[in-house]
């Protein structure tokens, strides 16, 4: 009767097992002791109303990028799919794949400082994304040679979009 759910939160994999024993719903997180639950929901996106070990709590759940976003107590948690699905690009704050740089936030590209064919050092600024009047420098995580620039100056980029591709150079 149990369902098992794997999520990546802040780069860490967490496993939640929901089970029902004698009419009582329980949640077990990782290797912790099972927690007795009562729950109802309006849907997704929607409010999930919980009573966890007798304590009422509520969360607002949205489905995003194959995983979930959950707002609890004013904080937004991003839960990317874990397990077999974890290799796919998600929302869980996982690092970029080697050879790709993605936009860490949505915004407008105000400056592109490199061109295709340029050799860059690890940590070198590739471009600047402006959002909400703040300029954010986007750096190359590794040394490499730029093979493609997938955004335009003055153009908008979405969070998670691949903006630059490069060929890593072994140091």
């Amino acid at each position: 009767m149990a369902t098992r759910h794997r999520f990546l939160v802040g780069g860490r994999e967490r496993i939640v097992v929901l089970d029902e024993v004698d009419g009582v719903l329980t949640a077990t997180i990782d290797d912790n002791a099972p927690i007795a639950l009562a729950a109802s929901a309006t849907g997704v996106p929607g409010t999930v109303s919980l009573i966890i070990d007798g304590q009422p709590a509520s969360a607002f759940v949205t489905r995003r990028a194959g995983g979930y976003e959950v707002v609890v107590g004013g904080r937004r948690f991003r839960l990317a799919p874990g397990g077999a699905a974890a290799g796919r690009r998600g929302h869980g704050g996982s690092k970029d794949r080697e050879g790709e740089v993605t936009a860490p936030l949505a915004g407008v590209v105000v400056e592109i400082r490199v061109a295709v064919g340029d050799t860059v050092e690890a940590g070198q600024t590739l471009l600047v994304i402006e959002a909400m009047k703040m300029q954010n420098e986007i750096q190359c995580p590794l040394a490499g040679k730029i093979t493609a620039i997938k955004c335009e100056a003055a153009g908008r980029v979405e969070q998670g979009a691949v903006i630059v591709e490069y060929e890593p150079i072994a140091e």
Partner: protein
Amino acid sequence: MFKRILLANRGEIALRVQRTCRELGIETVAVYSEPDRDALHVRLADQAVCIGPGPAVESYLVIDKIIEAAKATGAEAVHPGYGFLSENSRFADACEAAGIAFIGPSGSAMRALGDKVSARKLMEEAGVPVVPGANDIDANDVETARREAQRIGFPLLVKAAAGGGGRGIRVVEKLEDLEGAMRASGAEAATSFGDATIFLERYVTMARHVEVQIMADSFGEVRAYGERECSVQRRHQKLVEEAPSVAVTPEIRKAMCDAAVAAAKSCGYRNAGTVEFLLDANGEFYFLEVNARLQVEHPVTELVYGVDLVKQQLQVAAGEHLPAYPYPGPIEPRGWAIECRINGEDPYTFMPSLGLVEHVQAPLGPGTRFDSMLFSGLDVPVFYDSLLGKLIVWAETRDLAIRRMRRALNDLVIAGVDTNIPFHLALFDNDDWQAGAIHTGWLESAFTMPSAEDDPREQTALIAAALAASMAAPAPAAGGGRSTGSGNAWAARGRERAMQGRASGGGQGWRRGTGS
């Protein structure tokens, strides 16, 4: 009173001004940039005029477009809000030249206050205490600077006369460092502002930022509505404001208010304004500058003085006398008000956060006010600042206001973007903050956020997501969920609800706009 005014702004402040207008039966004209088409204040306006694309330099900052919109719609007055053109003297002049009332001070008063050295001199003449310093020093005149520096004392600040935004400022700890700082500041001022004149000022450390709200009519009457405490700042950005201030005694309040009124009278100030002071640990205060506009944090003053500052702005701009204070007795604060600025940002990295706001639930209940541009389905534009709204509470005492704010913060739900609500919750649990033992550098030097990991809220998030994934079955791949049985009663009930159309598992029908 005006029949129709134009709102030369956006976001929560356009909505705030519009609310008073609607209550007073004044029609509003909204001007909007393309990405603001669906903004609440645009939908609630009597008329709306598109003034260009998203970037403010092509829309909200273009004087001609706004004047043209005012003329075309027959608006008699313009409310500039804060930011954008609100403190642009050329805009105030242009409105006047077009026969449109500018709801704010005159262009000449803005100019007199805008230049830091001329404002300092004006205040000195008016008897307003200024930070001990020396004006008009040539960046190459080291001799004079040394003499003045010894009189002022260390540490001191070297500032560019034409400066602004923190540029051209150097902290000097001892005499030997003075010359180098003068050269650096002078050079920066010459390239940034085309003027190498500098001035020296004592560096008042461990000071609070305390400001006085003033309101002036065109008959020369100026009223002060007490102080606001705005010392909780990060990178010179205010995050929490309160009225009154724990550090201000009735005697200090009287002296500060008198100084603020004198400051306003010294330049023929009209309409709403804020006189900023530094208040040191000994209760001495010094003039900083005048903000010639309605402030973001004006609601805390409204709550403790029981007035509508926007209404008074409209009244004095329409040529009416400053209205009588509506309550018996002296003009003094009643109770305590606190405001939290709710910003769209990661509460741990301060990185701006944008996106589609899926859901908003505003806190309600006694003494709770939420001035915000948010609505479910808003795609927060990238072009403007990160202020999503202001949560403001009032209670009888500071302690009760803190409790009320904590309750209200817990009731506020914003889904789709990161917000600094977790920061505010942590701040309100901080002992120094609760005791009011703060100064402008306190947040950045002494406050630390609790770790992002080991957050007890994460457990609830995990369980809620697991339940959502379980409910979304029979699509087992979603959320990484893997059914190991025939499902449980809860999941079955969720599916049943989904069948009834109460849960969709997908979007709510809106889609992120493709434009801009």
